[in-house]
């Protein structure tokens, strides 16, 4: 079997597909889920990974520049969407282009992932900037360590609104998606995947192919991920 | 007055005592492990007895039946512990002052300077207890208890770590506490000299029980109970100071008999207590002449007790009171000492030891 280093946010979907893969091929897959930066650094320092699925193209680029991945195998595996959520069920949607987000927040905070460090935060900041909301909203942003923590802030009602991935918002009770950010307001949310140089690239590629097979795509879609066109 | 009634079971030891300590000094006497410290701790409130009642001057300190309990810090007991228990983080001066901080403002206070001088601990004031010698520690512990303006003093072998000279200096101070300040004391001691000098009452403990209680004269005069053995037996007599002589002797009047001893600081007319240790008395049928011993008490043999050993304890009635003499059976026989026989008790002046003199 091979070892897959994958961004933690892909866990449920990947576990499901791997189960199917094992059933189909008899091959076991071992996953190590953690934050993409940690995984990338570990690969830099010799981790026994065969396949890397990053939530962050930046870190994949770094590995590619250092020749640590099999560049030929790199694909954009998954896509995601950025949405605005609010605390509570059945909160009416709003129009991101016309609403004064800062005014709506009032004293409240906008929960986001770290806006300069974590992809979801970086994308969110870009989108808000593109929409002209960033200057007024920036002082009200509460930056969480990751998307899930931002979601938790909204779910608990601590922050009235937050910016998270569609995949996260779907599964959470107690929050409503009140707007989706336009695709063009931020760089595409892409999860690149690539076989790690020096690993079992053959099997890594086989599994990667399985992930991109219709069976794999279906499961990703079920979990709310987008699947970039090939 | 202190009344004590205690029952307390410890693993392998059971305490069951009941005694009253009239004003003055009550000495707890008894061999190692007979419960002396345990009694004192219960009086101090450091031990909660299974059952018991302790009162001081009518105030209930502890009554298990009525569920009354006065915590130790409200009892104001000046406790000199057997093992010192100085506060290691405080200097000697701070240790001494500790009790003063908590003493009621209106309480009679000993002055720090006086206590320091008495105990000879002036040079130690700025040191910490860790750097003191054994005797130095114990002296500081005594000072600390004295300075807390206590209603009562509990002293657990306070002098045993001290050299004889220091003991001789400090004993009179305990006496003064008893006589001048009138502070009651419960005092553990193994030394007959200390008992004779200080005790108003002696409580003899044995295996956690009161074996005997009585005045110092009664208990010290009874060889059967003396835990220290016959060598500690002796008589306590009352005498009145008659006059002071120019050669440094004080003449006492003990029931009409003159007794001489080295000058004592008491005004003529005052009553003192003297101890005559049984083993220091020599008996003679005729009135002896030409001896260096100045004190000769005429008397009559009251009774004579012999044991298995070569000794005999003779008690005499004299005008001064009952006197005990420890002689050999051989001498008793040679001199024909039988009840009713007249004889003379010879006591050396200086053998009426300064330590054995207490205010009556």
């Amino acid at each position, binding site marked *: 079997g091979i070892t897959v280093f994958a961004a933690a946010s892909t866990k449920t979907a990947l576990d499901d597909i791997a189960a199917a893969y094992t059933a189909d091929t008899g091959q076991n897959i071992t996953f190590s889920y953690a934050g993409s930066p940690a995984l990338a650094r570990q690969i830099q320092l010799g981790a026994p990974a065969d396949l890397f699925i990053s939530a962050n193209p930046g870190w994949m680029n770094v590995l590619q520049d250092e020749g640590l991945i099999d560049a030929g195998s790199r694909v954009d595996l998954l896509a995601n969407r950025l949405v605005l959520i609010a605390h509570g069920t059945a909160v009416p949607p709003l129009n991101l282009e016309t609403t004064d987000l800062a005014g709506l927040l009032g004293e409240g905070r906008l929960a986001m992932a770290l806006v300069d460090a974590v992809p979801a935060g970086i994308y969110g900041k870009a989108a808000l900037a593109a929409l002209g909301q960033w200057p007024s909203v920036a002082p009200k942003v509460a930056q969480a*360590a990751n998307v899930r923590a931002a979601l938790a802030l909204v779910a608990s009602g601590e922050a009235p609104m937050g910016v998270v991935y569609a995949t996260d918002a779907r599964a959470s009770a107690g929050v409503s998606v009140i707007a989706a950010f336009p695709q063009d307001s931020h760089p595409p949310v892409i999860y690149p995947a690539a076989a790690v140089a020096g690993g079992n690239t053959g099997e890594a590629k086989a599994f990667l192919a399985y992930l991109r097979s219709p069976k794999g795509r279906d499961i990703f879609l079920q979990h709310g991920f987008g699947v970039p066109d090939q | 007055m202190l009344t004590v009634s205690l029952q307390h079971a410890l693993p392998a030891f059971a305490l069951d005592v009941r005694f009253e300590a009239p004003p003055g000094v009550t000495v707890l006497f008894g061999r190692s492990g007979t419960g002396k410290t345990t009694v004192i701790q219960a009086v101090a409130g450091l031990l909660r007895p299974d059952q018991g009642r302790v009162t001081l001057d009518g105030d209930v300190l502890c009554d298990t039946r009525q569920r009354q309990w006065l915590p130790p*810090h409200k009892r104001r007991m000046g406790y000199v512990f057997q093992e010192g228990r100085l506060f290691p983080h405080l200097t000697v001066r701070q240790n001494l002052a500790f009790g003063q901080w908590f003493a009621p403002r209106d309480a009679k206070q000993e002055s720090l300077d006086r206590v320091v001088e008495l105990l000879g601990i002036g040079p130690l004031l700025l040191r910490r207890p860790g750097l003191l010698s054994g005797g130095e520690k114990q002296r500081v512990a005594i000072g600390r208890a004295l300075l807390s303006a206590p209603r009562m003093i509990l002293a657990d072998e306070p002098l045993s770590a001290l050299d004889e000279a220091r003991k001789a200096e400090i004993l009179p101070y305990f006496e003064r506490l008893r006589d001048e300040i009138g502070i009651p004391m419960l005092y553990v001691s193994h030394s007959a000299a200390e008992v004779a000098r200080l005790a108003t009452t002696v409580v003899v403990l044995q295996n956690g029980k009161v074996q005997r209680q009585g005045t110092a004269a009664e208990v010290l005069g009874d060889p059967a109970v003396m835990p220290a053995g016959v060598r500690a037996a002796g008589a306590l007599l009352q005498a009145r100071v008659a006059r002071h002589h120019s050669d440094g002797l004080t003449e006492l009047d003990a029931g009409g008999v003159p007794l001489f001893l080295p000058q004592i600081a008491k005004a003529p007319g005052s009553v003192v207590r003297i101890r005559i240790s049984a083993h220091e008395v020599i008996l003679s049928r005729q009135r002896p002449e030409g001896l260096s011993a100045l004190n000769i008490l005429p008397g009559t043999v009251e009774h004579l007790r012999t044991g298995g050993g070569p000794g005999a304890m003779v008690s005499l009635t004299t005008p001064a009171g009952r006197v005990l003499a420890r002689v050999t059976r051989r001498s008793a026989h040679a001199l024909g000492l039988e009840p009713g026989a007249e004889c003379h008790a010879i006591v050396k002046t200086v053998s009426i030891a300064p330590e054995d003199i207490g205010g009556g």
Partner: protein
Amino acid sequence: MSAEAAWLGPEEWQAVKLSLRVSLWATLAALPLAVLTAYALARWQFHGKQILNSLVHLPLILPPVVTGYILLMVFGTKGPIGGALQQIGIVFAFRWTGAALAAAIMAFPLMVRAIRLSVEAVDPRLEQAAATLGASRIMCFATVTLPMILPGLIAGTVLGFAKAMGEFGATITFVSSIPGQTQTLPSAIYTFLQVPGGETAALRLTLVSIGIALTALLLSELLARRAADRAGGR
């Protein structure tokens, strides 16, 4: 100070100051409670003692992120305690006070353990002696126990302070990372570590963090040595 200010960016400098404030407050505010808890665990017998003991240790056992979540649930504005406190004007959410609360809770078990060991090492007979000299329970504690546990107290406080300086998971989960409000040094370091090439900046902040904590440590060693000498009677 100005050298450091130049070396660090303004936002980093802010994080340093905030971390100091948060850690100091966390340790100082937790200290009395830690002493009380330690004393109770060491000396008293009461029902629920083991439960208290377990509660105290929970933050040590739990992954910090979980602690952060629990804090959010309990002390958030919608939480049972947080909501009640909000009524009387005490707010933790997104405030530096919340960061201090998180740091204090994470540091608490360390402080309690150290102090408790010291209390257990104090000979109760010395407290008894103080009582016979007229010191009430509280005065016994203040004049005898407290000075004697000083080494442990100092050790515990510095341990707590160091922990508070390094605490990250619970803090960021509870109060997130708002520059000037809740962005402590570890949050800032974490941020740098998330981006490729952020290592140098992270290292710089790490050094600052080490510098501060080690200074505290050395100071405490000096203090503890003196306190121990005194408690040892020298």
